[in-house]
């Protein structure tokens, strides 16, 4: 046993050395509090516990775990956009968590819960009785100036009984060691989904460390949040939607993550329709009632009829439905009025008046310049104060500015600032400059202090507020902590609230006895069905393109295959690739150039790369419906295909590799997707596209006097070489090849097989009309199947194949028009033009 103790000691010693090294290097910023090192220079206990365990890992192991966290972020596609980005960026995650001691946290949480309660009461009065304004507790001007004070909602009672369902506060630790509120988020707070993802990534990368630290779980918070939304509806098993502005939104990933985690339907404004007193979701099975809408769209964009008339993100008539108590919207539109900084200074007295107690947590000192004494105070201390807009983002007269620091302005701008504050003080606040605490980040194997802002979330429950233990921490790259937003050079961190006791494990899996058994999940919005259908089509079309490319290049590498007939067949392939937009016509036949273009030209809309990118874009809008594996396959193959190939061998191997990856995606879909409507639409897209392409290949290569070479290529293109040879034992002949490729219902690559599967899908989808007549997609599919069932290979002619191809194109269009009347090709709602 002595030997064992010795080896442990040996292990501990390098760890202690590393830790001592980190400590020595870690220098607090002057005049700034720090989370790790206390005022007296000693490290805080929770951090010491963490670094003790952390230092015991060997350096290579640490780097390996960091790399695994980064890889997970990349592969899961955890992304965000900053305004101006066209592509998603990977979410930068700090490798170290922010660690907060349980006792410290309890105080913070109590302060946040109290504040949430107060703000709810203020909202109730502002949009209701209006006593606070009438009695002078809040200046009317401090409300009227906010674009989020929504006049159409004055006097409207919030369905579900409350304004705030989710509230967030940005906080930082001040020099006095207390937590300070920097701002309130009452509109549609973002960050919960990222907090969840950060937790997932870090707890996975450092699983034993995470377990040993007794970190409070965040799952119960989400459970409480979900339960409250459910309970706010007026029927059991309510349908809850998460309203997103769409995949161009900078926080779309978060919307998809949350929708999937909470089991809500991810919807856009176009997915919803008002009828009578209610809101409905447009689904492939017609309109389905929606009970609760968790919105990530700002209030003013919610209803073009009553709010911002130019908005395309909302639902015309939504506000009127609220008036009729027909839907719960979380948070209630208009709640954002409380984000106005002008109000901060009035909260302490409001707390005493409404709650009968003092605010438990201070907020950053704020003077609203609409009041003369406050304005004079601000003007007299302009150099030590930050100037901000009183209501929303931006500072009138100083566009594009973060907070304006009087001391940093040129003399001219300084005078201008004074003038605008004197003229329209109501639009400005002054805020005290506070040095907020720093937290350690890991940089190049060292610890460095960085300022941060912590967003803390509160969810309403039947009896009070639940605070997420943890939150969303944003860390500044610069040492100046002001204005940490999701902008340049900012990373986020997981937040660990650490307990002395062991914490129970928790997930969102529901308890067994509370769940009613169901076999088919949820409803499928038309837009999602449309996207699934097109995802299937894009992937299948990419596959067809890759097969053509491979068929074009393979014989070029084989000197024996230079016959005139082979030349002729190669020219046909080139013409096909040009015709469907995969490559440009060349003056003289140039198969190598055309193959490379068709493989990976980013500017040809029909190239395999462009098609995969289209599939990827479509998949982004389906993020909450695809498994992480499926998403990963799409991302990886698209990225790989974008790498330039050098020669013909490169073309062939890139095409083959991508074909394999496409097959693995198809396998994932086949094996892992629930056989609900969603899977049917993905498969229908795939089958429709394959039927069309196979018919086209048949027409091009099995024409009436096709030669061996043509038929041989056809068998390769549709992957039927082996089947044919095992069945016929002769060289390719026209009628048997046509039978196998077009008519044979047992060959999974034939046209007939695809049509039969399509028929099966259509028959299993809900009928939309109740007139009892056969609907158009079914009519076309049944007709095509009848033709394919009764035709004889020997009597087939190329013009029949041509007609078949047209019928199949019509069938695909009919599916779109029938199930996705609101898809991208349908007419969008338009504004009536106004009056001059």
């Amino acid at each position, binding site marked *: 046993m002595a030997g064992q103790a010795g080896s442990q000691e040996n292990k501990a010693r390098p760890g202690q050395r590393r830790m001592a090294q980190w400590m020595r290097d870690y220098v607090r910023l002057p005049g700034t509090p720090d989370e790790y090192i206390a005022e007296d220079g000693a490290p805080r206990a929770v951090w010491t516990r963490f670094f003790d365990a952390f230092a015991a890992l060997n350096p290579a192991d640490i780097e390996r775990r960091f790399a695994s966290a980064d890889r997970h972020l990349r592969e899961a596609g955890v992304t965000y956009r900053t305004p101006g980005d066209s592509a998603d960026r990977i979410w930068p995650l700090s490798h170290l968590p922010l660690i907060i001691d349980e006792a410290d946290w309890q105080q913070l949480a109590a302060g946040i819960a109290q504040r949430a309660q107060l703000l709810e009461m203020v909202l109730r009065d502002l949009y209701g009785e209006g006593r606070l304004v009438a009695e002078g507790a809040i200046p009317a001007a401090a409300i009227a100036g906010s674009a989020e004070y929504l006049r159409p909602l004055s006097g409207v009672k919030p369905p579900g009984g409350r304004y705030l369902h989710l509230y967030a506060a940005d906080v930082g630790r001040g020099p006095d060691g207390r937590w300070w509120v920097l701002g309130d988020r009452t509109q549609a707070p973002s960050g919960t989904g990222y907090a969840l993802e950060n937790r997932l990534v870090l707890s996975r990368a450092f699983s034993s460390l995470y377990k040993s630290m007794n970190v409070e779980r965040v799952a119960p918070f989400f459970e409480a949040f979900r339960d409250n939304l459910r309970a706010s509806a007026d029927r059991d098993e309510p349908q809850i939607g998460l309203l997103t502005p769409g995949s161009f939104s900078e926080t779309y990933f978060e919307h998809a993550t949350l929708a999937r985690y909470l089991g809500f339907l991810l919807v856009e404004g176009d997915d919803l329709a008002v009828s009578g007193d209610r809101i409905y979701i447009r689904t492939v099975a017609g309109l389905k009632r929606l009970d609760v809408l968790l919105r990530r769209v700002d209030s003013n964009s919610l209803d073009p009829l009553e709010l911002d008339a130019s908005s395309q993100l909302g639902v015309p008539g939504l506000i009127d439905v609220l008036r009729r108590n027909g839907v719960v919207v979380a948070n209630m539109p208009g709640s954002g009025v409380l984000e106005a900084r002008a109000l901060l200074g009035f909260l302490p007295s409001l707390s005493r008046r409404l709650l009968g107690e003092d605010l438990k947590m201070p907020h950053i000192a704020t003077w609203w310049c609409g009041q003369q004494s406050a304005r004079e105070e601000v003007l007299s201390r302009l150099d030590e104060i930050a100037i901000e807009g009183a209501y929303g983002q931006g500072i009138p007269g100083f566009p594009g500015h973060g907070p304006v620091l009087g001391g940093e302005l040129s003399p001219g701008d300084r005078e201008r600032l004074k003038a605008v504050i004197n003229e329209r003080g109501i639009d400005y606040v002054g805020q005290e400059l506070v040095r907020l605490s720093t937290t350690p980040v890991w940089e190049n194997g060292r610890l460095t202090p960085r300022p941060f802002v912590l967003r803390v979330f509160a969810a309403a429950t039947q009896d009070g507020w639940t605070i997420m233990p943890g939150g969303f921490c944003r860390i500044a790259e610069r040492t100046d902590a002001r204005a940490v937003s999701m902008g340049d050079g900012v990373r986020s961190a997981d937040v660990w609230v650490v307990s002395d006791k062991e914490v129970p494990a928790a997930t969102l899996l529901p308890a067994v006895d509370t769940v009613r058994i169901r076999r088919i999940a949820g409803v499928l919005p038309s837009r999602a069905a449309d996207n699934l259908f097109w995802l299937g089509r894009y992937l299948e079309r990419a596959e067809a393109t890759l097969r053509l490319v491979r068929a074009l290049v393979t014989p070029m590498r084989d000197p024996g295959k230079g016959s005139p007939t082979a030349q002729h067949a190669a020219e046909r392939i080139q013409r096909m690739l040009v015709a469907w937009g995969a490559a440009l016509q060349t003056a003289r036949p140039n198969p190598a150039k055309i193959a490379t273009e068709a493989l990976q030209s980013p500017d040809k809309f029909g190239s395999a790369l462009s098609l995969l990118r289209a599939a990827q874009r479509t998949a982004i809008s389906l993020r909450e419906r695809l498994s992480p594996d499926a998403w990963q396959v799409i991302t990886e193959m698209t990225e790989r295909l974008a790498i330039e190939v050098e020669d013909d061998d490169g073309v062939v191997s890139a095409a083959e590799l991508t074909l394999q990856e496409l097959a693995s995606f198809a396998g994932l879909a086949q094996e892992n997707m629930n056989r609900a409507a969603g899977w049917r639409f993905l498969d229908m897209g795939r089958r429709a596209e394959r039927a069309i392409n196979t018919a086209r290949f048949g027409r091009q290569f099995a024409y009436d006097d096709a030669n061996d070479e043509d038929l041989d290529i056809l068998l390769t293109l549709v992957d039927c070489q082996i089947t044919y040879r095992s069945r016929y034992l002769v060289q390719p002949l026209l009628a048997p090849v046509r039978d196998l490729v077009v008519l044979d219902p047992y060959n999974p690559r034939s046209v007939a097989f695809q049509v039969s599967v399509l028929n099966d899908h259509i028959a299993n989808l809900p009928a939309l009309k109740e007139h009892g007549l056969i609907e158009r997609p079914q009519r076309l599919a049944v007709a095509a199947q009848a033709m394919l069932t009764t035709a004889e290979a020997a009597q087939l002619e190329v013009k029949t194949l041509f007609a078949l191809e047209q019928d199949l194109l019509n069938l695909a269009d009919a599916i779109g028009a029938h199930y996705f009347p609101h898809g991208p090709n349908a007419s969008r709602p*338009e504004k009536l033009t106004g009056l001059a």
Partner: protein
Amino acid sequence: MIYDIRHVTSYSYENPVSVARCSLRLEPRNGDGQELVSHSVEIRPRPAERTTRRDFFGTLTESILIETAHRSLRIDSRSRVSVSRRVPDRTASSSPWESVRDVALAATSLGPSSPVGYIFASPLVPIQPPVTAYASASFQPGAGILAGAADLMRRIRSDFRYDPKATVISTPLAEVFEKRHGVCQDFAHVMIAGLRGLGLPAAYVSGYLRTVPPPGRPRLQGADATHAWVSLWCGPGIGWIGFDPTNDLLVENDHIILAIGRDFSDVSPVDGIIVGSRKQKLNVAVDVVLVE
């Protein structure tokens, strides 16, 4: 004075429209120096739903839903209004503008007639330093509010060119101000922006003008369409007074108020969402006849 007003709005569409959901604000105001005698609106095709309510500003708002496919929409509004307004002379003495500003700011109501709702930027009226500077030339320190606003109105009338082709509803205020041209709506927005920049409470009014002027007076600009002007709160004694910068007139008995709001977006007479059209053509005809 009693007026009969006919206001016909017709849309024609290139393709059939399958669904139209509209808000109509076509009932003239009852109050503010006028009395609504009668009012009716006829809509073709006939809506499946028609509901009315008063909006925040007190305007009767009718929501309609049309679900029959149509290529044209015709909204025919008829009203009879009796107008009897007394307005002060533009040279009458009034409170200094600074005190009006301070009293407005101290208001303790968020209601529709509280001046505090009209001192801030609104969706179509941003507050812009050049516009504020332009307005401030009419408001010397201590100047009476009536005289100052009348002077600003006169300057807008002489500095800006009336040109119905120059702007559309979406033309931003900054462009109107820079190019010094536009229609009644633009002039009203410019004047409102200038007044609010100084902290003065200014509202937007939509309405009508009598079509045929009294004998010996010129026909007013904007008489054959809906018109727009400004209502300024001139302190607790005088209250809200109408200023028509398009015609350099204090609003008296030739103007009939339709609706009042912060800017055009609050009072748009016909507004809505349609599905299916692509191209649309709009025709508005207004006729205001003096009955007695």
